């Protein structure tokens, strides 16, 4: 076992992690721990753009962007956070340009901008050109640029290290902690994939930037490595997860594969059609049609298929039509995604419409933070020295549905803020003592998994989990379907306790790590489903067919889910009788739901029409 000491430890080297590292490493001794080489992170798969009201091509201002973000999130957005994001978006884009990001340019040589779903002029009048982009590989360029600047700034990386535990100086799962009492995060335990060795990192500040958890679903745009590690680690340590029932299904995944085709395809003029060739979005969102927010488009597509207007031999997808666009325009603006269609489906987008269907894409929920990136342990109190940014976090700027491009924005704005906060705190703080055997739990977990006699295959359990989530907790949900998913998850947990790995070695044991990651996936699926069962309304990405309307009176609150021992109180903070009072017992623990108020500044909730 090796021990390290850093002022700031950042977990994850995607956009949020590296943006945080660029801030904190200027001020404090910083290490970035990543389970992948930084340039492999899934930020690189983001395509379409990053919105900021630069007004380079038409009139725009950040207040409109704030409004769109709040309305897009179906009013479950914390409005102070959305304001921060929209306002700081402008500087965030300029930051990236000055770091070298090769944005596409206007004829005047300024950063070009294009349309994107849900981004409008003057509070919904018409689509606005707000997304700054680099062809359809904006995320790739952001990831490369941030990594390049980390190289320039000599940021220290621990690549292919898996963080498997978060060390906190109080046991939040069992202890009753008083309001205002100091709780500190003191370090993390990591596993070096190459050698199998355990590393303990003691730190004054820890930033979680571990990304999402799309692999709880079968059809997803997410990488194999997006297994919700950071969320699950926080949750296991007794920290709440916020708004986990809100998962975004991106409308245009390649049918059957889930590979993402950017919304930029529609921003550049692409049209969704059903088997009859009808531009069906005209019926669902008469004003902005194909550029309605993703939850609405995804539901409309699923509805077309459900009502028998799907295309293909099984009538199970719709068509993304680019055939009316000039091939030269497609090549200039959408080269990568049209190549995906060619490579993976053998479809030529110049002349043929592309089969598409919604794909699990983005977790709106996550580890709750305030606008400084500090992690909350309940509705009010922060954990000292613990920060989170990016998809792992819930600020909440996305509410119940994230607008396209706002994730690349989120990682830049809140990655920077988290890095800055982490460094500032580290400068004033001292190292806190670690427990005597900080890695004991991780070592025991790994040994048990490695030494378990022949049991069930991890892959079979994971597949069953992903299938039940796709079948029962996707675009359309009901109390019945969700309870079915929950029953399956309970059963899968039992099977997981007997799962075994075949590779018993120390070196580069990906078999073992996949087994550990499945544990994270089960945690995240479980909390997602429990929160979804409790929310008996439809809002943003969470659509309950048995409760099709938004219910502001009872549900205009963030869900906070806590894992607690069986003997603990059934009431969490924000307990609301009849609405946020759900308790779900599991084997040896329970999930207790509470709530947190939504921060409103100037926007009254209205009906959401496009």
């Amino acid at each position, binding site marked *: 076992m090796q021990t390290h000491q850093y002022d700031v430890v950042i977990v994850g080297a995607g956009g949020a992690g590296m943006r945080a590292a660029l801030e904190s490493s200027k001020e404090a001794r910083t290490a970035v721990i990543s389970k992948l*080489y930084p*340039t*492999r992170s*899934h930020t*690189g*798969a983001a395509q379409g753009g990053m919105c900021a009201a630069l007004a380079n091509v038409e009139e725009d201002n950040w207040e409109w962007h704030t409004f769109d973000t709040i309305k897009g999130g179906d009013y479950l957005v914390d409005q102070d956070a959305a304001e921060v994001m929209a306002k700081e978006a402008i500087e965030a*884009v*300029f930051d990236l*340009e*000055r*770091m*070298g990001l*090769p944005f*596409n*340019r206007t*004829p*005047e*040589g*300024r*950063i070009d901008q294009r349309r994107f779903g849900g981004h409008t002029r003057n509070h919904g009048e018409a689509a606005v050109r707000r997304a700054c982009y*680099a*062809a359809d*590989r904006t995320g790739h*360029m952001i990831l*490369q640029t941030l990594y*390049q*600047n980390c190289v*320039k700034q000599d940021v220290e990386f621990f690549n292919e290290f898996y963080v498997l535990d978060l060390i906190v100086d109080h046991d939040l799962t069992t202890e009753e902690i008083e309001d205002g009492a100091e709780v500190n995060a003191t370090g993390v335990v990591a596993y070096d994939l190459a050698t199998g060795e355990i590393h303990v990192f003691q730190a004054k500040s820890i930033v979680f930037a571990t990304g999402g958890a799309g692999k709880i679903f079968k059809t997803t745009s997410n*990488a194999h490595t997006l297994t919700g590690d950071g969320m699950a680690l926080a949750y296991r340590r007794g920290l709440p997860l916020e708004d986990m029932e809100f998962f975004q299904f991106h409308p245009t995944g390649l049918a*059957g594969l889930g*590979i*993402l085709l950017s919304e930029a395809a529609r921003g550049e003029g692409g049209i969704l059609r059903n088997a*009859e*060739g009808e531009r069906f979005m005209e019926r669902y969102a008469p004003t902005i049609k194909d550029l309605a927010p993703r939850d609405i488009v995804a539901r409309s597509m699923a509805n077309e298929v459900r009502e028998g207007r799907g*295309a*293909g*031999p*099984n009538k199970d997808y719709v*068509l993304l*039509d680019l055939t009316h666009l000039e091939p030269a325009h497609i090549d200039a603006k959408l080269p990568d995604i049209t190549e*995906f269609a060619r*490579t*993976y*489906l*053998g*479809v030529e987008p110049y002349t*043929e*419409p592309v089969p598409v269907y919604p794909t699990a894409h983005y977790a709106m929920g996550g580890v709750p933070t305030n606008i400084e990136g500090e992690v909350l342990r309940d509705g009010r109190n922060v954990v000292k020295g613990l920060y989170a940014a990016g998809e792992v976090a819930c600020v909440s700027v996305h509410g119940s549905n994230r607008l396209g491009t706002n994730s690349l924005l989120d990682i830049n704005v809140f990655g920077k803020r988290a890095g800055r906060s982490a460094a500032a705190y580290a400068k004033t703080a001292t190292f806190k003592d670690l427990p005597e055997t900080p890695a004991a739990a991780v070592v025991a977990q790994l040994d048990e998994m490695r030494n378990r006699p022949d049991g069930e*295959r*991890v*892959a079979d359990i994971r597949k069953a989990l992903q299938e039940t989530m796709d079948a029962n907790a996707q675009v359309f949900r009901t109390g019945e379907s969700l309870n079915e998913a929950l029953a399956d998850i309970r059963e899968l947990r039992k099977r997981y306790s007997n799962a075994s*790995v*075949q*590779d018993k*070695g*120390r*070196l*580069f044991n*990906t*078999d073992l790590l996949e087994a550990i990651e499945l544990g994270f996936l089960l945690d995240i699926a479980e909390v997602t489903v429990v929160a979804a069962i409790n929310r008996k309304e439809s809002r943003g990405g969470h659509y309950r067919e048995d409760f099709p309307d938004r219910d502001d009176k009872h549900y205009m609150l963030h869900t906070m889910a806590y894992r607690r021992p069986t003997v603990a109180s059934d009431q969490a903070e924000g307990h609301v009788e009849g609405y946020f009072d759900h308790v779900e017992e599991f084997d040896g623990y329970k999930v207790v739901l509470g709530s947190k108020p939504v921060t409103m500044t100037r926007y009254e909730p209205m009906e959401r029409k496009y």
Partner: protein
Amino acid sequence: MTATLENTATEAGAAVGVVPSFEVTLRVRRFNPESTHGEESYWDEYTITAHGTDRVLDALHKIKWEHDGSLTFRRSCAHGVCGSDAVRINGRNRLACKTLLKDVNPDKPIVVEPIKGLPVVKDLVVDMEPFFASYREIMPFLITTGNEPTKERIQSAEDRARFDDTTKCILCAACTSSCPVFWTDGQYFGPAAIVNAHRFIFDSRDEGAQQRLEILNDKEGVWRCRTTFNCTEACPRGIEVTKAIQEVKRAMITRAF
């Protein structure tokens, strides 16, 4: 319009839905110092059932998840943008997630090996550190002098287009590890590092071209390139790698960039 769409829809549908499954054999070069084979590499063959749209990565996953959990390889995004899974397939460097089985003659065993020229760690996993070290050496970041502008720097669309091709690089090492010079001389910077130098040398905003050209003028630098075009052929992003290297060579002579 509608009629055309219906027709093409059916055709596209046929391509997606009706491709039959088939049996395919993968012959994989294994290496695991912890196994009974010790420091010797060896071959394993696996026969699996695949579908029309399956890629080599799907086949590797099928082997790992259903047959042999110890088979080790890197992967993440699974659609050709993260650069994790460059391997040698039937003697050519490719991304496993971007290579459809049906396109690499599945009638015969498909041979999968680690990329060449980098130390093998386990099975298809190689040590990428030397590769990234070369990348870091060419100063892969924008170098400027003077005050930062308050907004963005101005760059014409033409100037932006000048280096567009080399911004596509995902650092998968398919090019570098296909280069015969790199195989015989691990000190050579290799195509990927030069591609990334090109990305900055020809960026009108950058002022570090002289420094980078000095670095690449080294004996292990750009002059080692023998223009075999292996790199261009290997690039899964379609970057004209050899052309980029030629442009860097020319810039070194003419000092025009």
